[in-house]
């Protein structure tokens, strides 16, 4: 296990989370999220720590990690872009957004991360934000009604190390008389 350890705070949070569930194993997703938030990805060494905390074999942890699409088994770029490509978003131009990311910004879903290490782009399935399609999640932030121009703003903020632009709020289609 040389080379990877969790902070004491993370380990404490993990143990506290695991104790909330009827079986330790049920705390595994929680434990994996704590690992990924601290380390950026879930390495084999980290899986061994999680395995010993929840009392199952590392192979069973690997089985869980690889079932879910949001766990990174290798370090992703500093910012993870998830562009929805399912029907509503595709009808509303998701393909254009993906092309723009690739052609204008060199951010390509075919690569693990961009050469500068700043970006990972994933084409993902329905993000439950179809009312303002196309939708894109950047790290934990949802962007809707995404355009080439809004992509430019978000990418620029990432490159300059600034905080991400504020996303649109409220309910799509909502009017003051209550949609």
């Amino acid at each position: 296990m040389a080379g990877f350890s969790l902070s004491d705070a993370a380990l404490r949070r993990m143990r506290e989370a695991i104790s909330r569930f009827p079986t330790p194993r049920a705390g595994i997703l929680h434990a994996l999220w704590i690992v990924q938030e601290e380390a950026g990805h879930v390495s084999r060494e980290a899986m061994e720590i999680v395995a010993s905390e929840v009392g199952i074999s590392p192979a069973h942890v690997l089985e869980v990690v690889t079932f879910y699409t949001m766990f990174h088994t290798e370090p992703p770029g500093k910012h993870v872009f998830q562009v929805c490509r399912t029907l509503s978003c595709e009808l509303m131009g998701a393909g254009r957004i993906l092309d723009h990311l690739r052609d204008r910004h060199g951010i390509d879903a075919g690569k693990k991360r961009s050469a500068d290490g700043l970006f990972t782009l994933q084409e993902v399935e329905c993000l439950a934000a179809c009312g303002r399609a196309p939708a894109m999640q950047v790290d934990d932030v949802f962007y809707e009604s995404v355009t080439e121009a809004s992509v430019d703003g978000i990418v620029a903020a990432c490159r300059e190390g600034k905080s991400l632009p504020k996303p649109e709020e409220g309910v799509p289609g909502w009017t003051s008389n209550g949609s």
Partner: protein
Amino acid sequence: MDFERVLTANFGVENSRALSVYAGRGGYEGLAKARAMDPDAVTEEVKKSGLRGRGGAGFPTGMKWSFVPKAAIPAKPVYLCVNADESEPGTFKDRYLLDLDPHLVIEGTLIAAHAIRAMTAFVYFRGEFKNVKGVFDAAVREAEEKGLAARADGTGGDGALPRIVTIRGAGAYICGEETGLIESLEGKRGFPRIKPPFPAVVGAFGSPTIVNNVETIAALPFILRNGAARYAALGTGKSLGTKLFCVSGPVENPGLFERPLGYPLRSLLESDCGGVRGGRKLKAVVPGGSSVPVLTAAEVEGVLLDYESLAAAGSMLGSAGIIVMDDSTCMVAALTNLARFYSHESCGQCSPCREGTGWAHRILKRLVVGKGEEKDLEILCSISRNMRGKTICVLADALAMPIDSYVAKFRSEFEAHARDGGCAGVHPGRSISDLAGAQAEAAAS
């Protein structure tokens, strides 16, 4: 439209996430009434309201609750699972309930927990809803501090109050299926279970478990506060109450609309959504999330948005994710998109689904780029026949229904692709990577 709001009454209210604001608008009155009642009486009240599961199946909620065996109590704990793993394509309702009115969902959760005698309620969020879960967790802390629920570790509440434990998934459509969700909650891959036994008898951790959708849960405070009759006064026939309709695709004003069940689909599309964008014509509508049979523009006429009317029209209300397609859309491309989705999301347990979704996707990719053959249509329909009703869960059916309906209702487009290599429609394709990939594959073979 004028009717009593059940689910969105607090949308647009300033600071709607705060417990004080929620309580100031009648919030937690339904819970107080429920807790003064015998749990079985709460279940009876919900039965009388006619509330049906809003996740897609439309099963009567009170009846589902009554399947929890009485004999098991107190030998085994009973669990409530609130399904916040919203992921049916075209559906975007639960995220706004959880984000803008978290206490409505918390109150509903506590009412349901009381009715089924659960001391633990799990709320399972899809992984992408991290920020929404953060809002919800903060509201749960507030409810705990006000003595409405025990703390997540089980302390507080003098052993008399249930606790709410939230959990975050990590990206898997199948975890929205109730037994897939239970498996995931137990810390495993989200493989759906063979039923029976149904979760109400043997669910999470071997215990009786009720899984309810967020929107179902969110209707409970209204029903308990105002009585079942007032809820049942909304809606029509066996489809009572209101529903959140999610409209997406090329209409002028897509969005989320609460309407009584039985509301005309035409009114929703024309009056509320302003009709098809850019003066184009309506071509097709998926009325209940991507899994249900598609309706042609002609079939949309006269259809009412309730369980029975949509079944009579040959489709389903499902999750009420309404996806609109205009006359520029190529239906072969649209179906290819859905086939990719189901192929990607198949958990792989059952061969007809694991293989069938992949075969269907590969055939459609071939057809969409003009490399298909006429016999592909028959192969596609035969794959669909061999997927339907042959698997543990309904994911295979969820692709078979679109395949059958798209091919039957838009057959000429599929034939044009098979015979002439394409059609006049737009192929929006993500396409680009997808189509390029398909072309490379076709060229290599």
